[in-house]
């Protein structure tokens, strides 16, 4: 599940929730240049692909990697 408001799917028990950007554009940011927007979308999709391959015990949020440091955060709520 990709969501700009992960709190809601986590509360209703979605196992893997990827944090998106904003309500009106979950998987990108039209405020960025085309290249940066695409790169952001890429990171979100990668987080989703990793999420689906990660075993979880319950509702888990996956946060896409930052631009600066290529780190992947995951937190259990």
């Amino acid at each position, binding site marked *: 599940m990709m969501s*700009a*408001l*992960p*709190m*809601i799917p986590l*509360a*209703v028990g979605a196992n893997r929730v990827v*944090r998106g*950007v*904003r*309500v*009106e554009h979950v998987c990108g940011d039209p405020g960025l240049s085309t290249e940066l927007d695409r790169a952001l979308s890429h990171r979100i999709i990668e987080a989703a692909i990793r999420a689906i391959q990660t075993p979880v015990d319950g509702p888990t949020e996956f946060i896409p990697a930052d631009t600066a440091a290529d780190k992947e955060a995951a937190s259990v709520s």
Partner: protein
Amino acid sequence: MSLEVGSFPVEDIKFGPETKWHDGVLEIDRDEILGLIFQDELIKSAEIDFALPGDSTRVINYMDVIEPKVKVRGSGQTYPGIVGRSTEKTGEGRTHRLQNFAVVECVDYAGVSDEMRYASATKQTGAPDPFFDKGGSHAVTAFAPQVNLCIAISPPDDLGPADRHTVIHSATMRVADRLAATVAAMEPPELETFDLTPREGLPGAVFIPHLSSIEWQTGSRSSMGMSVYGQTRLSAPWLLEGTELLDGAVSQRHSLQLADNPVVLEMARRHGTTFNFIGCIIQRTNWTMQAEKEMAADRAAHLAQKVGAKAAIVTTDIRGQRYLETILTLQACERLGIATILLSEEEDPEGGTAPPFILSPPEMVSVVSTGTGAVPGNFPPVDKVVGTVGKPEERWYGEQPPIIGRYGAYHAQDIWGYGNQSLADY
């Protein structure tokens, strides 16, 4: 901080040679009122009519419902800040109001393309057209009980949504002001004093209504949508006195329910008994990132704590993500030790399959429900339809589909339990 509210009840309305209030009857000089509307040359066609409680009458096309109020003592103007009105602080002195009465602003979109109409972002495409019944089995919404003067205006050509709103709402306010002026110099039959000076030794309580902003659709400088002293933008929380709300400091879209708000009135009436009514924290919603919503919630809770609140009543105005923002405020308040009560309508029941609330975290320990708003059975046929400039479409005289729940049903919205929908539920 004291406000006297003088109430002049309206039991009947009729046309006459002079606009005046006398002994519960509001007399309307039709030409004078139409003249006020047509004062703006951009308005080419308009009509006025009455809608009386108990009559087989349906009001359609309504955009806002306004209770006429006038300041007779103290600074500022009622309904401040909107459509070019004074932004001076209100909430003190004396205000006179026409009670059990409202001017209904109806915009007749006949002949207007959907593209132009829905650009206004005031109605979701596909949602039922807004209407309310004055009599019969379904006269249950917040606007059923009042005597109404309905103003129907055709939207001026070649104006964007915000300018169109300004033109139409200005005309409505000219009429509301004129009617309120009829009682400005009179002694009110009822006078209620709200002195909100804190009493020593009592805990503080705040009202935190969450009111959506449509900035994300209209931009931050738009005249459209609910406003705080004219500001409709998605802003940090505003701290207002309860008496400022009673003067209409928060208005538009839900003007009657905001300026005659049952929560504000009850908290103001109980001020000084078991708690001090410290104020209202107006929390704007529709922040579009979860992090922004969390930030805004923390700011509201911090403000509540700083002004000494030990308890809060939070309400929400639309469901979905606005409800999430309300719950975030509730959580933030509870974390700071502020006992917080949620007053809310419930989700659409969806045939009994939907949960009453999309989120109910452990901090949510005290909830007052105003029901789902669902009213079974069709709206019955009616004899009279008002709210159009010309002849209403025939379909409006016939049965209308039942209210399934309030979400998306603008004609059934009743955030604070002002209407009687819930009584049909239980």
